[in-house]
């Protein structure tokens, strides 16, 4: 019993005592394992570093402007394109395609995931075709979609939506299926009606999965946009770049690439912010 009594006595010794003796090398409040505390705006550091290399390399003359235009030339070109009214409309058209494709894709993916996640019959019918679609790249599907839907906006939006649907379906379905069975047991003892069970237990439990899918979906949406805008398009950022390619205007191509990158980064950030807001109940290594 003596051991029990000495324990609190040691614990109550002032903590700076140990530090003074030089034995406590570990600073308080820092987790030793795990990635540690979040760096403010840390997600910007990588892209800024890349930008820094580009600026420095161009200024030193190490990067041939015919291969990669200097950043200031890109800014200048972007400004000129904007001034002459060539960039604005293209940007708007691209953003509209992105938004519509994303919306329809997310809705379709969600509905399919819920149907297949909540019923065995739904899974039997839906899961197979989605998995088949998953193994066919959008690019390979394009000739068929062109034949079916023509070269207008409808084809572009459907192509984007088809790409978005997959990650939303996969991750939401996985989220639905990996909800702890003990919660189903609890719901049974509470005699939850099926509607409350789905609304209160199943869907909120699948939200983390949905948001993971959402982040893939946003990226996939931009990727599909690039593809459809370089095939048979007459407007959009991709078309602008394609045109610049034929005339050897490296600077315009870079403007397009930077725009794609910026838009991708911004939309991913928006998803992350919403995710944080909605999933406040959850604390993971990320925080």
């Amino acid at each position: 019993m003596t051991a029990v009594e000495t324990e609190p006595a040691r614990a109550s010794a002032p903590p700076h005592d140990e530090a003074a003796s030089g034995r406590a090398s570990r600073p308080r409040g820092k987790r030793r394992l795990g990635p540690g505390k979040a760096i403010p705006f840390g997600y910007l550091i990588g892209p800024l570093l890349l930008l820094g290399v580009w600026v420095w390399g161009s200024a030193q003359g190490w990067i041939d402007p015919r291969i990669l235009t200097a950043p200031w030339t890109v800014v200048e070109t972007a400004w000129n394109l904007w001034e002459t009214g060539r960039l604005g409309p293209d940007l708007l058209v691209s953003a509209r395609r992105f938004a519509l494709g994303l919306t329809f894709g997310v809705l379709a993916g969600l509905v399919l995931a819920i149907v297949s996640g909540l019923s065995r019959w739904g899974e039997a019918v839906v899961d197979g075709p989605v998995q088949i679609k998953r193994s066919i790249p959008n690019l390979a599907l394009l000739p068929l979609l062109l034949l079916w839907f023509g070269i207008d906006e409808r084809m572009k939006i459907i192509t984007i939506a088809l790409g978005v649907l997959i990650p939303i379906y996969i991750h939401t379905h996985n989220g639905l299926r990996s909800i702890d069975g003990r919660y189903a047991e609890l719901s049974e003892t509470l005699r939850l009606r099926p509607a409350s069970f789905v609304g209160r237990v199943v869907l909120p439990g699948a939200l983390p999965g949905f948001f993971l899918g959402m982040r893939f979906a946003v990226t996939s949406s931009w990727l599909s946009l690039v593809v459809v805008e370089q095939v048979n398009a007459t407007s959009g950022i991709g078309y602008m770049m394609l045109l610049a390619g034929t005339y050897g205007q490296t600077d315009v191509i870079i403007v397009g690439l930077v725009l794609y990158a910026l838009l991708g980064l911004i939309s991913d950030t928006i998803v992350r912010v919403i995710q944080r807001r909605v999933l406040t109940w959850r604390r993971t290594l990320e925080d």
Partner: protein
Amino acid sequence: MATHTGGLTTATAAVRIRDLHRSFTDDRPVLSGLDLDIEPGEFVALLGRSGSGKSTLLRALAGLDQDASGTGDISVPEQVSVVFQDSRLLPWQRVLRNVVLGLEGPGAKARGKEALAEVGLAGRERAWPRELSGGEQQRVALARSLVREPELLLADEPFGALDALTRIKMHGLLRALYERHKPAVLLVTHDVDEAIVLADRVLVLDQGHVETERTIDLEGRRDPSDPHFAAIRTDLLAALGLAGGAEIRTEDKEAGA
């Protein structure tokens, strides 16, 4: 679906089990020929070695034994609540929403708040479950089961995951709540002292049926240092297959199932 012949009927008041048999896939019977009656408002504790079928019995009463097969008659009241060993709170719902989960009608929230106040958690309605300590989470689980005004409360080692101090506090709380609401209670536990402190009657399960039954006739506050208390403990430990009381602590910790 498992095959249960015999019925699960609901009676107006108490638990009545006749000739209950349950087994799992390996066909080793877990419960064989078990009879049990619980009067309305009676507090019964169920002891038994690991694998003696305590939890199987409780799950049969809760209607959660779809994976087991067997025969027998079970009758339970209309309103049955279950408290599990883990609090089983939905992490994505705030405390109050957890308490009133599945309740409908305009009075549900007010009743939920009342129940939270009863377990000493007034003002924590908007907290997330993960912000609470283990003991507090289990108190929320108690509030969730009491707000449904059960005629039968089934508790499956509800304090098994708590530290000793918190457990003692929870004993007082559970007993107080029981005195006020007077549901019939079946408490499954591996802690002999807990059974004697809380219950009116203690059963020991062995070989798939109730082997020993002991009415706790202690007056006033139940004190483990009371010689009468100690005598009951010795009897129950003997029924559990332990001659002395010394080894019980280490042996008991393993009694999960």
